[in-house]
């Protein structure tokens, strides 16, 4: 068809439309809508607020949705492709995403990098190439940022274990340091990082000097008989981590060049029920899920996903959330929860919101001041939940 023919058809069609429009005009009379021409524009965010949470939408989606617990509204998405880890800049200026992608989708050259997004316009600032990273889902502590925001630490397993140190201020990869037999990282200011190990110890990797060095605590747990969940919680105000084992033992470690690890106590006994056991055929309350617990740092309240089951049911969804007061070592509240959640987080607001999700991608937001459900968010996601000021 020639251009003249196309033009002729266009005019014929336009004339017909106008004629029809005129014939229909009487039926469509009255209110005159605005006919001001519009321009496409783009929404912007503020830096992250304490009332926000970020939920990875799951294994088959490529983003983390940002919600405000005050309004229940979806504000936008950070791009987090499959098996990536999201970390927040403590100053709130950037979102960091530790990623792996191949040049030709499922094949081609593997690329590992940390993407830097501006937190207001969500535009990519840069990608920082790194040598590699472990591909695993559901972990909070495989990509952590130092509290001063200067360094990022990316866990790698190839299958030898190591940590990739990234200078986030200079936006460049610094070095890779071996960390044999250990995983799950926490930044230790002025020292380097600490990590849980297969010999039941907490290793501390010194990165401050020219040479890195690893020291290990005395073994304090069994990595195969009663493992500590990778997803421990961090309290920066006390410079502590709070750890939870499969049977429900709670440990704390005060971080430093020589970490100090507390004697454990039983979460179940703190609630007045028998302590959890690794023995078979015993039905009891056990902690479980993927992101099993959440710490409200300002009040020292730990929220744990609990279910009735046997040992080795550590991935099961919860029927209750237990609120443990860490100072008095008492479970002060037990809440029945819907949706068999496997992920839980708590916003760090003065009046916090509990956020939890099960496999069906429904996210529940509870107002902890009232103990009532504030929002039920459909199709929100079932991956890791991140909140501001949690690292």
């Amino acid at each position, binding site marked *: 068809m020639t251009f003249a023919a196309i033009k002729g058809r266009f005019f014929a069609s336009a004339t017909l439309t106008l004629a029809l429009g005129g014939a229909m005009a009487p039926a469509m009379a009255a209110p005159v809508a605005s006919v001001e021409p519009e321009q496409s524009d783009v929404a912007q965010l503020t830096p992250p607020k304490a009332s926000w949470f970020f939920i990875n939408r799951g*294994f*088959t989606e490529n983003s983390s949705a940002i919600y405000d617990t005050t309004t229940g509204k979806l504000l936008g998405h950070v791009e987090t492709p*499959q*098996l990536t880890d999201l970390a927040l800049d403590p100053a709130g200026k950037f979102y960091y995403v530790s990623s*792996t992608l*191949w040049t030709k*989708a*499922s*094949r*081609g050259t*593997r690329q590992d990098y940390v993407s830097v997004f501006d937190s207001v316009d969500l535009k990519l600032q840069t990608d920082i190439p790194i040598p590699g990273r*472990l*591909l*695993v*889902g*559901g*972990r909070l502590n*495989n990509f952590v940022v130092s509290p001063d925001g200067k360094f990022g630490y990316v866990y790698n*397993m*190839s*299958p*030898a*274990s190591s940590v990739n140190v990234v200078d986030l201020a200079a936006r460049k990869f610094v070095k890779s340091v071996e960390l*044999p*037999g*250990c*995983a*799950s990282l926490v930044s230790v200011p002025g020292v380097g990082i600490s*990590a*849980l*190990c*297969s*010999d*039941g110890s907490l290793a501390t990797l010194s990165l401050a000097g020219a040479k890195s060095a690893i020291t290990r605590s005395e*073994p304090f747990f069994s*990595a*195969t*008989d009663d*493992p*500590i*969940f*990778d997803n421990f919680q961090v309290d920066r105000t006390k410079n502590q981590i709070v750890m939870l084992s499969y049977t429900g033992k709670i440990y704390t470690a005060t971080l430093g060049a020589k970490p100090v690890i507390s004697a454990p106590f039983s979460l179940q006994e703190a609630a007045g029920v028998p302590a959890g056991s*690794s*023995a*078979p*055929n015993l039905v009891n309350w056990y902690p479980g899920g993927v992101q099993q617990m959440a710490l409200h740092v300002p009040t020292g309240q730990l929220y744990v996903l609990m279910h009735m*089951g*046997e*040992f*080795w*049911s*550590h*991935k099961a969804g919860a029927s209750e959330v237990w609120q443990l007061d860490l100072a008095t070592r008492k479970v002060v509240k037990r809440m029945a929860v819907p949706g068999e959640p496997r992920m839980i987080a708590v916003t760090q607001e003065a009046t916090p919101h509990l956020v939890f999700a099960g496999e069906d991608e429904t996210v529940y937001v509870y107002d902890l001041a009232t103990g009532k459900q504030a929002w039920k968010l459909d199709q929100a996601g079932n991956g890791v939940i991140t909140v501001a000021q949690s690292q």
Partner: protein
Amino acid sequence: MIHFDADSLGEKVLRRFAGGTSRRGILARLGTALVAAPLFPVLPVSRANAAPAKPDRGPEAKTGFARGAQVTDNTKCDYWRYCAIDGALCTCCGGGVHTCPPGAEPSPVSWVGTCVNPEDGKSYLIAYRDCCGKSYCNKCNCDNADRETQIYVPQLNNDIIWCFGTQSMEYHCSTAVLVGAA
């Protein structure tokens, strides 16, 4: 307390693997990633766990999964070999219980489980080898966790993408290869 012997379990899997493959051919094909893989038994991961006691696998020690397991349908999550599987079943994706679907590549290394066969009540060592190099099959997804640990004991963790030593680390589905008596 039952002590789970991760060391001997890992050793068994790797010995079977070493016995059934041409070392030179594998090295040529897979390069450094696979060279690193057999290091597992000498890493502190395993050495730290040298176990004095033999694990109790008697009927009284059966897990909830083992008590409800079946032997007839390997496209279901409660098939006995799947006691510690996590991911899409290759039996639902064009493959089989030890067979990768067309175009996928089996990982030479894996995480392992010890599962009880209800037919004879005995425990068997299962290598959960991922099939790699194709996009996620996303059918018949299971997540069983008998004796499954965290990633600081990687050979017993089922969340890790076990596609080390394959041409692409893209995860497609998981198989449950019978290695032998536990």
